[in-house]
């Protein structure tokens, strides 16, 4: 039972990270492999604010999110838009954006290594026990989970009920038709990409309160986020959240029952099963 809850708590933060990637891939059509580095950068910022000024990571996210939004907006405008314009087909854009974001990811790791060194970093924020249904858990995990749930809920509501949120969903479903109904697809793609980056960086700040990170930890998170997005279905918010919770539980089960070194292998097994049996995602409809 406590394994299930720890898994769900972990899955909640995964959901946030994967939602960020899903916005970038599902709406802006950029497979962003530098996503994990944005997460680590968010974590670094939270770490720095906490050790320098004892500022709670739950407050830091209000600084991390706008900065990450601006940064990602610039990245999209300067680096990725030329690729979108140059690409003749969707496949060409995919290859180019994969290579370019790989480049970005390595550059980001290189810069972070140069700036902060290769050490692991962690800090003890709310490292006190809390009792839920007879078992005890660390408060920081619970706090991160609650924050993630609130952000997911706000995002879900915004995408479903606000005008700008609906335009983003229209863009995700059909870029050509979105243009026909007067949506400025180019600027909205940039916004979606920037928003995705901000959500991921926020997730990073939350994750850093209970996981140990280092400069090159990003790629593992990118992989997990990718697996979650594909499991849940590209552009499907509900599917992403459920897939993230599922992955969190499966990982925790494998880590505590078999071996902590096999978490990625577990994630991959899930991934293979999805690819073989439901390549359209957990809730996707089979294309006719």
């Amino acid at each position, binding site marked *: 039972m406590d394994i299930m809850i720890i898994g769900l708590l972990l899955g909640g933060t995964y959901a946030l990270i994967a939602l960020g990637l899903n916005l970038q891939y599902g709406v802006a059509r950029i*497979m962003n492999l530098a996503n994990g580095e944005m997460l680590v950068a968010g974590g670094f910022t939270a770490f720095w604010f906490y050790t320098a000024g004892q500022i709670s990571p739950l407050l830091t996210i209000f600084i991390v999110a706008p900065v990450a939004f601006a940064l990602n907006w610039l990245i999209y405008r300067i680096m990725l838009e*030329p*690729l979108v314009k140059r690409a003749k087909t969707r*496949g*060409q854009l*995919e*290859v*180019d954006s*994969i*290579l*370019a974001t*790989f*480049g*970005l*990811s*390595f*550059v*980001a*790791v*290189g*810069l972070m*290594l*140069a700036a902060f060194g*290769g050490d692991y970093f962690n800090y003890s924020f709310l490292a006190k026990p809390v009792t839920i249904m007879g078992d005890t858990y660390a408060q920081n995990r619970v706090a991160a989970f609650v924050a993630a749930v609130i952000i997911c809920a706000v995002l879900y509501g915004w995408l479903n009920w606000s005008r700008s949120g609906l335009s983003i969903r229209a863009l995700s479903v059909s870029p050509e038709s979105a243009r026909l109904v007067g949506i400025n697809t180019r600027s909205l793609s940039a916004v979606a990409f920037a928003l995705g980056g901000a959500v991921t960086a926020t997730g990073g700040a939350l994750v850093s309160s209970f996981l140990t990170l280092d400069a*090159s930890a990003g790629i593992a998170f990118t*992989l997990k986020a*990718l*697996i979650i997005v*594909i499991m849940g279905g590209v552009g499907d918010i509900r599917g992403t959240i459920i897939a993230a919770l599922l992955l969190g539980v499966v990982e925790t089960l494998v880590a505590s029952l078999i*071996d902590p*070194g*096999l978490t*990625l*292998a577990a994630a*991959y097994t899930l*991934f*293979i099963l999805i*690819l*073989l049996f439901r*390549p359209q995602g957990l809730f996707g409809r089979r294309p006719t």
Partner: protein
Amino acid sequence: MTSLEIRNLALAAIALAVAACLPLYGSDYLKSMGITVAMFTVLATSWALFSGPTHYISLATAAFFGVGTYTTGLGFETLPFWSLIAIAGVLGAVLAALVGLATLRLSGVYFVIFTLGLAELVRQVITWTQNMSGQKGLYVLTDLTEDQLYLMLVGLAALVYLTGWLIGRSRLGFALRIIGDDETVAAHSGINTATAKVLLFMVSGSVAAMTGAILAPRYVYIEPALAFAPILSFQVVIMALLGGVHRLWGPIVGVIPFTLIWETISVSFPSQVTLFLGIAFLVIVYFIPNGFVGLIEKARDWARKREGFA
């Protein structure tokens, strides 16, 4: 055969002879660079055989390479060395077939993601089995010299070029080029696209595994973190793209300069290699999308046009 083909064949034969004689005249530095260049030539060329025409970016090289090194590591005491290379080739092909069957029916992104984590997946499983059996790394002590390993790599490279040339002339090669241009058209004209892609991916995986098997004695001591180092996959992708993947001789044009720069940087600024790798990716995407070969061809066309007007 046309005269152009005969000329190319002669050039290839001379290049091969020069490469094969390196142990006779080379200094120690040249020999050690030679083995690295030969290794990356084999890896990058076989990578381009698959990824060039299909545009599927495979990041699984490290996984296949690691499987090869482990084949040698586990079997060199009981079996002759040449048979280990063959076994590694078969294992690489089988692994590639499994990965290909699971992912190549789907879009390119799934394939990239899957191959990206494949090396890590195999590494975790091997580390776990080693922990269960209480064993750590493996010592690979053979009496093979560096020169012999180098010659084997050159032989393998010749084999790869021959295979690539034959594939390029075969129905399979033609089918792959159509798939790369437009997969829907390929499927409509009766090409079994999944089979064609899986077959080529098997060639590429098998060659990478054989390279790993040949190079295992050079490492002397192998452990999962070393044999499955993910950076190898990225190096291979960069070298191939830097050279140009639409010609068989393209990758080697990227391998030689990149190896030289890489060695210099990893000796003088070891902590900056990641940054360098990233910059190399960005330069390729933004400035030389068709590689050095693309630049050379562009310059040649430009020169011809000028002659035409003069």
